[in-house]
């Protein structure tokens, strides 16, 4: 064989990945070949690939089960690693791990995003001494991820299993997109759970995509197919800069979608009646620009990326339609991570408040609602990006604090005319203050007395009174809210502050 023939033959073999039967098996499950996934991810082909010949002396392990390289997504360079599950189920050998480490280190020195396309059974037990414990062992992958965190965007697309230690790759990414039915994460498989702790459980129930995206919150976005996952990632990256030194790109501004009902008609006067906050979001953002994160997890709080006048904005808002918009341990966690994500990459924050407060009762106290709530307050407080809070309706108790109330240095705190700020709502307040008095009164006199006291209370917390006391910065016509936000975000763009000087805080995790 000539030199050229040998090169051609070897390249062709490696490009095909593992044995035909594994390709077939994947196809049956709706899974694409690793190189096909990359074709869909990049604008064109991958520009460069390194260690293509990894482990080529073996012959049965093309590229050692992982493809690493750089290509363009929306015109910007990104680093990728893509497990090839047709090669020993995408398991990690010594060279697999070294390849992953090198592409991460490239992402670090070039300061460009790192995308992980995960579909792997985990460590190759036969190679454990070479790939598990040492300085360049698998642990280093996570060490690198932690170093990259907040420096460049890290995205995980989960197409298959991510088992045992491998499950930490998604955990350290900014966002995890999971394909329903195929993607899973778990530290120990159902078989292991049965052997070791005697639990009988299905994979879907213990570590499936739906579970992780709605119960554990380790997953962020649930999709039906691989192309959908890849499309989500391409769109998600349009809201981000390449790294923490840059600002997100501004795209062409769009009008909002037009609706018959305006914001004024949308908000019920009764503070306790539910409405759908998504309807309000749609009326202030550029058309079709909402990219929701953790839609199925803790839905009483909505988090998502959007654009206002072509600029990226992270929106955090209570959803009165779900659990009354009350804050729970999970909603506080969800907010904390999202705020950190936006602040890390210079994406302005918008808080839309309609919050009765944090949940009370035994269940949430035992779940540590105080420390989870503290986490949300800490991240919100530390965020130094332009930060606007809008009181849509009620802002009661610590809910006002957690949603970037005036004490937490938002660039401004706006109120709609329907806003109501108080330690607690009128019903609860009158109960708390006059409980004994109410009990003493004859029953027929109680309703009138309660009504009188509630009215007094409402006058006391009147929104114009709070504006008069400079608690809020402006009262805005709901239908002018988008214009007001456009102007203010544009003006606050030059904001340049440091939160405080220290090594780092001691976080209430």
């Amino acid at each position, binding site marked *: 064989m000539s030199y050229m023939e040998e090169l051609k033959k070897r390249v062709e073999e490696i490009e095909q990945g593992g044995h035909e039967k594994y390709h077939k098996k994947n196809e049956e499950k709706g899974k694409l070949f690793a190189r096909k996934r990359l074709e869909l991810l990049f604008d064109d082909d991958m520009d460069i690939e390194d260690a293509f010949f990894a482990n080529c002396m073996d012959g049965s392990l093309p590229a050692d089960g992982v493809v690493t390289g750089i290509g363009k997504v929306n015109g910007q360079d990104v680093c990728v690693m893509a497990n090839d599950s047709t090669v020993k189920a995408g398991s990690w050998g010594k060279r697999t791990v070294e390849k992953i480490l090198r592409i991460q280190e490239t992402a670090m020195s070039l300061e460009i995003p790192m995308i992980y396309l995960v579909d792997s059974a985990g460590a190759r037990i036969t190679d454990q001494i070479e790939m598990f414990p040492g300085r360049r062992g698998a642990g280093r992958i996570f060490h690198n991820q932690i170093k990259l965190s907040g420096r460049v965007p890290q995205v995980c697309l989960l197409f298959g299993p991510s088992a045992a230690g491998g499950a930490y790759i998604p955990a350290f990414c900014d966002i995890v997109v999971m394909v329903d039915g195929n993607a899973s994460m778990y530290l120990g498989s159902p078989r292991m759970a049965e052997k070791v702790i005697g639990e009988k459980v299905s994979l879907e129930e213990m570590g499936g995509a739906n579970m992780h995206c709605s119960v554990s919150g380790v997953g962020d976005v649930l999709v039906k197919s691989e192309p959908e996952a890849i499309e989500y990632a391409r769109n998600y990256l349009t809201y981000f800069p390449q790294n923490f030194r840059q600002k997100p790109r501004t795209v062409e501004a769009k009008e909002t979608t037009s609706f018959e009902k305006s914001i004024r008609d949308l908000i019920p006067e009764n503070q306790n009646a*539910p409405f759908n906050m998504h309807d309000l979001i749609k009326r202030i953002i550029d058309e079709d620009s909402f990219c929701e994160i953790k839609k199925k997890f803790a839905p009483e709080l909505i988090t998502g990326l959007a654009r206002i006048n072509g600029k990226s904005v992270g929106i955090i808002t209570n959803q009165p339609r779900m659990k*009354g918009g*009350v804050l729970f341990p999970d909603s506080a966690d969800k907010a904390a991570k999202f705020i950190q994500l936006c602040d890390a990459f210079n994406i302005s924050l918008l808080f839309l408040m309609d919050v009765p407060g944090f949940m009370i009762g035994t269940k949430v106290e035992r779940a540590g609602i105080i420390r989870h709530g503290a986490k949300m307050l800490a991240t919100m407080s530390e965020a130094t990006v332009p930060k606007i809070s809008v009181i849509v309706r009620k802002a009661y108790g610590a809910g006002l604090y957690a949603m970037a109330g005036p004490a937490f240095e938002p660039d401004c705190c706006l109120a709609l005319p329907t806003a109501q700020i108080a330690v607690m709502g009128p019903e609860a307040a009158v109960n708390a203050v006059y409980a004994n008095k109410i009990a003493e009164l004859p029953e027929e006199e109680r309703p009138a007395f309660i009504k009188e006291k509630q009215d007094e209370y409402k006058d006391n917390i009147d929104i114009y009174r709070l504006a008069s006391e400079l608690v809020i910065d402006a009262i805005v016509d709901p239908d002018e809210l988008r214009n007001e936000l456009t102007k203010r975000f544009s003006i606050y763009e030059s904001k340049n502050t440091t939160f405080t000087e220290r090594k780092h805080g001691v976080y209430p995790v």
Partner: protein
Amino acid sequence: MTEVKANMAGNVWKIVVEKGDTVEADQDIVILESMKMEIPIAAEEAGTVIEFKVAEGDFVNEGDTIAIIE
């Protein structure tokens, strides 16, 4: 058969459909009152309401079954 469950602790304020009614997915079945807020609880799937496990005024905890839909 699916169970409609309370997503948070509270009191059953209003039952808005009747036993035997056909309901759509996402249609409200009952409204709880909790944290002074109205909390609508909707059916996850379409079907017929065959049984209520609660009455108006009852306290329910998170995860308690409210109704059964077939």
